[in-house]
């Protein structure tokens, strides 16, 4: 118990330091890294929303970009035709994402496993096709350019526009991430994990599993649409690329690499993938290969995601210690014994 409490305090301290760093980032970073950081925040929200399905409920969606794009187009269309203020537009974007999820949910939840994957992918491609062909409204493959970037009013003039939008993103994403944290730790979130592990068992216990999955699907859709709306403001543009399945695949990779079913995993995954894309591509043309190698190493060495890195290191150190204690005489072996039991408690938790 003691070790657990210490670890919890450590974790709290890390989160606090990170929060302070995120708030101070505009003072520390030049414009370009700050905009990359803004993008990382937006994709953190996207990956975390996908993680509700992929990681917690065990629903392998390859169509999550549909919600991202829906949010983006809601913001784009509202800005273009009605000049709606950003706060209202983002709310409408979330509602639009939720509506798409409400309509498609009953169909996709009839399928399982690989079929679920392909059906979500297919529906996303159909949405892509509609946007592509409905040139009059959506602008087809040209998309909708010129979406005005919103600002926090009382900060205008005091800090740069990039920093202003960064703070806006930080606030919105922060609230959404807190909401997701609350959701996955609630009884509802725990029931989702139960569905992932053994759906029939949960059904037997009397949980309405279908309804729970439906609600998870709708929530994930809403959060993804919020991320999509923010991204449209960030780029000042929305196009079919923001619905493309490639984006859904990238989200999936972020979740898996960071650690599916863990809370902070998707954030780490988003950070890794975007940094690889921007930083590695800057100094080598072979960055696609590097990305591939990173994937493979990640799967082989850290199968539960990067977020488990400290645990892995501890495991490996414990194993090394155990091996060395075999060789020296008894005295040292007994000295190592209490240590080992601590390890066991940690492993069990």
């Amino acid at each position, binding site marked *: 118990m003691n070790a657990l409490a210490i670890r919890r305090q450590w974790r709290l301290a890390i989160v606090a330091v990170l929060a302070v760093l995120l708030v101070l980032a505009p003072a520390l970073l030049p414009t370009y890294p700050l905009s990359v950081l803004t993008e990382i925040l937006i994709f953190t929200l996207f990956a975390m929303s996908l993680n509700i399905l992929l990681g917690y409920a065990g629903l392998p969606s390859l169509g999550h970009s549909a919600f991202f794009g829906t949010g983006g187009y809601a913001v784009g269309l509202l800005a273009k035709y009605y000049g709606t203020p950003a706060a209202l537009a983002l709310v409408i974007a979330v509602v639009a994402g939720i509506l798409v999820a409400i309509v498609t949910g009953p169909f996709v939840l*009839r399928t399982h496993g690989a079929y679920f994957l392909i059906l979500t992918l297919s529906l996303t491609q159909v949405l892509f096709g509609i946007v592509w062909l409905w040139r009059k409204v959506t602008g087809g493959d040209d998309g909708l350019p010129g979406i005005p970037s919103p600002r926090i009013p009382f900060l205008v003039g005091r800090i740069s526009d990039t920093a202003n939008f960064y703070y806006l993103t930080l606030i919105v994403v922060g609230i959404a991430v807190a909401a997701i944290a609350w959701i996955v730790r609630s009884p509802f979130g725990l029931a989702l994990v139960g569905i992932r592990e053994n759906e029939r068992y949960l059904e037997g216990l009397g949980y309405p599993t279908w309804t729970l999955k439906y609600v998870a699907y709708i929530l994930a859709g809403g959060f993804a649409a919020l991320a999509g709306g923010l991204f449209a403001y960030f780029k000042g543009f929305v196009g079919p690329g923001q619905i493309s399945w490639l984006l859904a695949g990238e989200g999936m990779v972020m979740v898996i690499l960071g650690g599916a079913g863990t809370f902070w995993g998707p954030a780490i995954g988003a950070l890794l993938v975007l940094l690889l894309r921007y930083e590695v591509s800057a100094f080598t043309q072979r960055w696609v*290969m590097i990305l*591939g190698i990173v994937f493979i190493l990640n799967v082989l060495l850290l199968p539960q995601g990067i977020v488990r890195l400290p645990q892995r290191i501890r495991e490996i150190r414990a194993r090394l210690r155990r091996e060395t204690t075999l060789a020296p005489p008894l005295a040292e072996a007994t000295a190592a014994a209490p240590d080992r039991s601590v390890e066991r408690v940690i492993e069990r938790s």
Partner: protein
Amino acid sequence: MPINTASLVIGLSYASLLFLVSVGLSVVFGLMRFVNLATGSLYLIGGYVAWSVARKSNSFLLALIAGAAAALVLGILIERGFLQRLHRQELLQVALTLGIAYIVQDVTRWIWGGDPLRLRPPAVFRGSMELFGSVVPTYRVALIGIGAVLAIAVWYLLERTKWGAYVRAGVDDLEMVQCLGINARRIFAVVFALGALLCGLGGALGTPVTGVAPGTDIQLQLMALIVVVLGGLGSVAGAIVASIVVALVDTMVRTFWPEASFFAVWALAAFVLIVRPQGLLGRTGW
């Protein structure tokens, strides 16, 4: 909708290729629950190696063998090297095979460049011929023939031999098969290798028709996924039917409504899965 012989031939020859790429994926998927997103890469390797060998040796047959062999080697490497460790861990399989696909794409771009490469069909099948009153490319007709022969061979192997019965039993209930003392691991390996071989053969055969370029792998991968899921996981007959349906729809839409070509197949897939969540010939309960 006017369906003429020419578009039928083009559609069916495309169906042959789709079948070759997807049948291995389908059985591997059904039997091992293994999601191989590097299937398109096997096709790509088959196509590129065939192209190089054909240029060096001037023999189309040798090119086919080389292409299939290259994919076989890559397939065995993937299976022996990585796959065995990741049994029943679908998400990790997705990430791993995606990583392999990235590497293969980059390596092939490095070696063969980014331009699309096209192979000339063998002398016997060059030019065009007359079929039911319309002129069609001879190679496409040959492709249909080859595809049909291979489809029947695979179907016979899996549905009418004892070994095929083991495989199908593995698709239905893996634990029970292992309890009966059948070495499921060896069956896995052989099925995976055979699937990779057919993929590479498909790549080599397809090079005169589709060409190979970075991106062909993704295109074929997506098509194969649609075919596999529409047909029903683990079903050879399903893969045959779905290949034909998908290829014909794709060809027809390409002819009559080109702007919608890339998503018509997806609309079809969505429709089928909404009506039949287990695919055309798939069984419920997977």
